[in-house]
């Protein structure tokens, strides 16, 4: 935290809070995150409050950060509201996986997962399960639930040891140069609750970065829906679809925006779902522990309250995630050739560059700093068939086993500075941005082919452009 706020004040961001953010020279492209944009690009780049966050809201931001960062403990801990961890969990703080608000990564081969997790589900086989699928997105494994929790409090067996093994996947550029990608497969060992369902589908996911989440939440639904082209009527080979998911607070279907398959409609629900699934902490949105019928020790373990997470804390963490600033681009003018290639190859067909966020609704005036902003997330928030190579075979609401939500690219050039790694894609299989491009398939197959046909120098220009985002 010390560093977080520290760096905030180092540059223009601080003056932004006073309304002093400088106007851009006309030649420069607009700021990635509109008025929220922060101009600090060191390891704290993803952790800074929006440049236009009023001074009077800093207390909420700082308090939210504290709950995002600090570790939760098992219940009952002497009168602490920071208890309630588990019984089953993947980690004990948000920051463990979203280190410095950045992205997670796969562990060394065979080592336990730390900043990633494994989702699990089975096909719907009964009417009841089909009904469940509509509100839960997928049918949980009857013994292990919808997520493999590889850690647990004392007295409760962790579900399994989860690790990854890797397989080489060779390929060749148009110029004859060869490359080798690597594909992970999930290995579950030490299964504590009996055999896995024979039809079980597993999907390994790294923690996504938090960049610009509040702004993505404010993109008007109509603007996203307008980009959807499920039947590819325009014949460009790209047929984005919206995910329709379950909004637990409204008990209604809603547009999915967050998560690798756009399975969550709001940031608040995303946060609450992560608290329950990843930390084992219940909230008013998700009041039940994810203990399955065979997990009796889980069901009988002490609770940290009903629910364990106070709404006030849920709201603070949500506010924190909403009001993180988006880092500014670096040297965008030198990246023009790569930017032109990005467009020419069709990347921008899904990685949509520009949106304008909606006006602040009356009930949300506290978040007016996110309203009416011209932003550059490089995502359409739609689902796309990404081909067999990336498929996890696990549906989530309307998303099928080959579909993934276009991940926003803003901040992608700062991943190494923030997280000290360059692992990309949902399971972190890509070891750099080029590998991430080479994994694209399905609707993105023509773009991938066009990339491999480029000269090395052109490929470098495109990668250089991505590095400035």
């Amino acid at each position: 935290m010390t560093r977080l706020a520290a760096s905030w004040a180092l540059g223009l961001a601080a003056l932004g809070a006073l309304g002093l953010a400088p106007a851009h020279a006309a030649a420069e492209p607009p700021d990635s995150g509109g008025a929220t944009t922060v101009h600090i690009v060191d390891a704290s780049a993803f952790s800074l409050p929006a440049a236009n966050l009023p001074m009077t809201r800093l207390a909420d931001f700082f308090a939210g950060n504290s709950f995002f960062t600090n570790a939760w403990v098992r219940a009952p801990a002497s009168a602490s509201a920071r208890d309630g961890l588990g019984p089953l969990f993947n980690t004990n703080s948000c920051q463990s996986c979203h280190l410095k608000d950045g992205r997670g990564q796969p562990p060394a081969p065979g080592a336990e997962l730390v900043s990633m997790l494994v989702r699990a589900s089975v096909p719907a086989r009964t009417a009841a399960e089909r009904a469940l699928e509509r509100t839960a997105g997928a049918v949980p494994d009857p013994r292990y639930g919808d997520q493999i929790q590889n850690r647990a409090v004392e007295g409760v067996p962790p579900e399994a040891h989860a690790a990854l093994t890797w397989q080489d996947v060779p390929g060749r550029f148009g110029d004859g140069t060869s490359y080798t990608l690597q594909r992970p497969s999930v290995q579950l060992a030490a299964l504590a609750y009996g055999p896995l369902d024979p039809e079980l589908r597993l999907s390994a996911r790294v923690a996504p970065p938090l960049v610009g989440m509040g702004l993505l939440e404010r993109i008007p639904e109509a603007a996203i829906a307008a980009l959807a082209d499920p039947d590819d009527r325009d014949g460009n080979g790209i047929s984005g679809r919206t995910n329709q998911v379950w909004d637990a607070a409204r008990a209604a279907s809603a547009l999915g925006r967050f998560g690798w398959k756009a399975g969550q409609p709001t940031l608040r629900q995303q946060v609450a779902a992560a608290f329950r699934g990843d930390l084992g902490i219940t909230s008013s949105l998700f009041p039940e522990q994810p203990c399955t019928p065979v997990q009796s020790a889980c069901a009988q373990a002490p609770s940290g309250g009903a629910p364990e997470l106070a709404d006030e804390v849920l709201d603070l963490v949500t506010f924190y995630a909403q009001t993180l600033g988006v880092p500014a681009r670096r040297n965008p003018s030198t990246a023009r050739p790569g930017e032109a290639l990005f467009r020419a190859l069709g990347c921008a067909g899904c990685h949509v560059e520009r949106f304008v966020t909606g006006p602040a609704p009356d009930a949300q005036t506290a978040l007016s700093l996110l309203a009416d902003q011209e932003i550059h997330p490089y995502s359409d928030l739609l689902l796309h068939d990404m081909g067999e190579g990336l498929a996890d075979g696990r549906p989530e609401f309307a998303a099928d086993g080959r579909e993934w939500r276009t991940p926003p690219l803003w901040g992608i050039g700062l991943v190494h500075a923030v997280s000290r790694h360059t692992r990309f894609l949902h399971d972190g299989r890509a070891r750099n941005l080029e590998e991430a491009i080479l994994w694209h398939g399905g609707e993105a197959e023509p773009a991938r082919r066009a990339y491999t046909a480029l000269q090395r120098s052109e490929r470098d220009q495109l990668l250089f452009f991505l590095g400035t985002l």
Partner: protein
Amino acid sequence: MLCAALGAAPAPVQVAPGGSPELRERVTLHYARLAHAMYDDALRGALALQAAVERLLAAPSPDTLQAARRAWIDARRSYSQTEALRFGNSNVDLWEGNVNAWPIDEGFLDYVTGEYAYDVGNPHARENLVGSQHDLSPRALRVSHEMAGLEPNVATGYHAIEFLLWGQDLNRTPASAGERPSTDYIDGPGCTHGSCARRARYLLLTVRLLVDDLREMHADWREQQGEYWTEFRGLDARERLGRMLVGLGSMGGGELAGERMRAALLAHSQEDEQSCFSDTTHLDLFYNALGIQDLYLGRYTRRDGTLVEGPALSELVHSVDPELDRALRARLEATQARATAIVNAAESGEPFDRQIAAENATGTQRVQAMIDALAAQTESFAAVAARLVGP
């Protein structure tokens, strides 16, 4: 200076919206002068701490340990006031993590017993720099600080020293703090918890690093010579005022009211308490708030009792909006009163970790009252920023 400004009726002259350029110049340079005086005291406090630690290590006993702890509390009092210089001045912000990092996964540093909560994502949470074979040199401590990029791996600074002097606060009684025995520093027979010679070396190194760090910051603000003083002097007055006000607002409204108080109050947890080993968080809060008030009023009482005063931000605000100045001074005073109530309770046997306990209605109300006061003063600082700096 301040009294003169307040006592005389405002002269009927036309002033610029942000105050006269001449006054803006004098007020901002006086702020730098106060900064230098504050770091001078923080350095003196750290030197006294170093002397007390040397006495402890030369002859470990309950008395020398107690004296070292008193020296830490005293050093911390001066340092805490300087925190009002954070969040606006880049030199302070880049440096602060080395001297004041918190919270700590204390198993990273030394032995731990009992229930020890740490981050699952921290592979070094049980590193035990003291009890392992890690190289102990000034450079090694610097390199180990925030190992693997993880902030809870605190190797240097006040809170590392605090843990080495007090140990974990296991709350054997409600009012108890950490109870590390002085025998943890006996080199030879009688050593408790092992690695006593290494622990002694570690403590000495980290205190010396703290002194080095404070020397650096002290030099940085030296009038006419310091690197940051020169940078600050080179800025126009609007930018200087911007840095001052962002700092005063962020420290009080964000760091203090948000992270250190509201989060702690909501969590009811000593893990959220800044000086949790020594149970002196109440003093941190009080002196943090005092530093903010001092910088606004342009006056600071030195460790030796002398008063440094000069052209105040308050005077500048008064010149453009007397009512705003009056309100902000009253709000700063209200914060002081509420901080004093927390200190008084702590000194009557109810440390901050008890005051934030869920079942302690009086204590939590007392803490909430200071949070509310900080929110009010921050609102005023935002208004001041709008008047003096922009938009």
